[in-house]
């Protein structure tokens, strides 16, 4: 093995890497937030909407879950202009990620709704809880407890998946890596460091989510 590692050239571009990492975080947080709104609306419509709407939502979920994210992002970025919707790469990346996480989110939210039984609400009423207390303690908290693990792992999955957005040159961490290695040709070093940054971000969020769960969501009496 007579390969000389040149990590210095990667760290020289630390500002680009930091900016890329921030963009990745922003893209993930924004698409998660908007995606959750889509997911809640979708879950409500799937549970209570008219038949045609329910079928449309099922089709949406199945189409997204059974096609690669890369193809979805190509359709949004390259395909939509054909029907008159032209988006910047960053906008297309955000839209594709929202569409993607929305489909996975609907099933998560539905599981949360289903975890609340009507009898528990009646029991809360029988105990003399006020409506707001019932919503907070009997409906919201157990529902969040039920979906917290899948929701948080979905977020980390989404963050890692956002690297695919580099395929349309949206500004995020992997695209920053592509730019840097196109300049200095230190492909291995650049991608190795960037993979490390992604891993550090995953560890950070695993840690934060575990702390939040321990602080607010542990409730031994549940189930």
């Amino acid at each position: 093995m007579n390969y000389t590692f040149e990590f210095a050239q990667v760290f020289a571009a630390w500002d680009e890497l930091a900016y890329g990492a921030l963009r990745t975080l922003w893209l993930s947080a924004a698409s998660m937030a908007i995606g959750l709104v889509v997911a809640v609306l979708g879950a409500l419509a799937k549970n209570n909407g008219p038949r045609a709407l329910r079928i449309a939502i099922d089709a949406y979920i199945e189409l997204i879950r059974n096609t690669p994210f890369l193809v979805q992002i190509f359709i949004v970025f390259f395909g939509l202009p054909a029907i008159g919707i032209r988006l910047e790469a960053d906008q297309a990346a955000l839209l594709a990620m929202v569409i993607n996480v929305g489909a996975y989110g609907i099933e998560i939210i539905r599981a949360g709704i289903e975890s609340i039984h009507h009898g528990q609400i009646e029991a809360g009423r029988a105990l003399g809880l006020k409506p707001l207390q019932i919503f907070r303690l009997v409906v919201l908290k157990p529902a969040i407890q039920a979906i917290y693990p899948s929701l948080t792992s979905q977020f980390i999955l989404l963050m890692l998946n956002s690297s695919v957005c580099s395929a349309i040159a949206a500004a995020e961490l992997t695209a920053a890596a592509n730019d840097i290695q196109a300049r200095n040709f230190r492909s291995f070093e650049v991608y190795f460091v960037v993979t490390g940054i992604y891993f550090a971000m995953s560890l950070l969020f695993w840690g934060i989510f575990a702390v939040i769960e321990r602080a607010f969501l542990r409730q031994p009496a549940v189930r």
Partner: protein
Amino acid sequence: MRSFGPNEVFYILAAVRWTLLLSIVAFAGGSLGGVVVALMRAGSIRALRWIAFAYIKIFQGTPLLMQLVLAFFIPGIFGLDVDPWAAAAIGLSLHASAFLGEIWRGAIEVVPRGQWEASGALGLRYWAQMRLVIAPQAIRIAIPPSVGFLVQLIKATSLASIIGFVELTRAAQVINNATFQPFTIFGLVGLTYFIICWPLSAYSRRMERRLAEASARA
């Protein structure tokens, strides 16, 4: 500019075999590695348990795209030249080993402890216990999530296009660059993935429901 005709459709659809072949190779490689990871993780040797845990976390905590890109560039450090096909097959196999390993560890640990104790009392050693008593029960539990992961893996092969392997998605890009009909082409490609993946998803879900009903009755 070329027009988008039957020849172009055929070129794209012919690339499906590379998507399927890569999926099969990665699933086979991932199964071999996954068995090792699962046995290490569910075993009683602390150091091996820890190594398997770290392996799983690294693959769960980094983007698959970066895993494939590194699978492409790491051999170069050792002076080896790998083509995109080998890099994708190796990268996806290692990736699948981690995820299948974690799924199968779960399946092994769901088998009640009493099964280990009873088979141990009958005088069976570890490998005989695993082969005759534990694995047959664990496999039943593991099938639905493993098929579910196979769907993930088939979709994941699309990322091999980024390191230059010409499978379904890359073939579509090639044709799109020549004909510029992105909506039709990527729509067709999406539909092709859907036709491959959806039956597997439906099967996995049905098996899961059946298993849940069976364990609710027991």
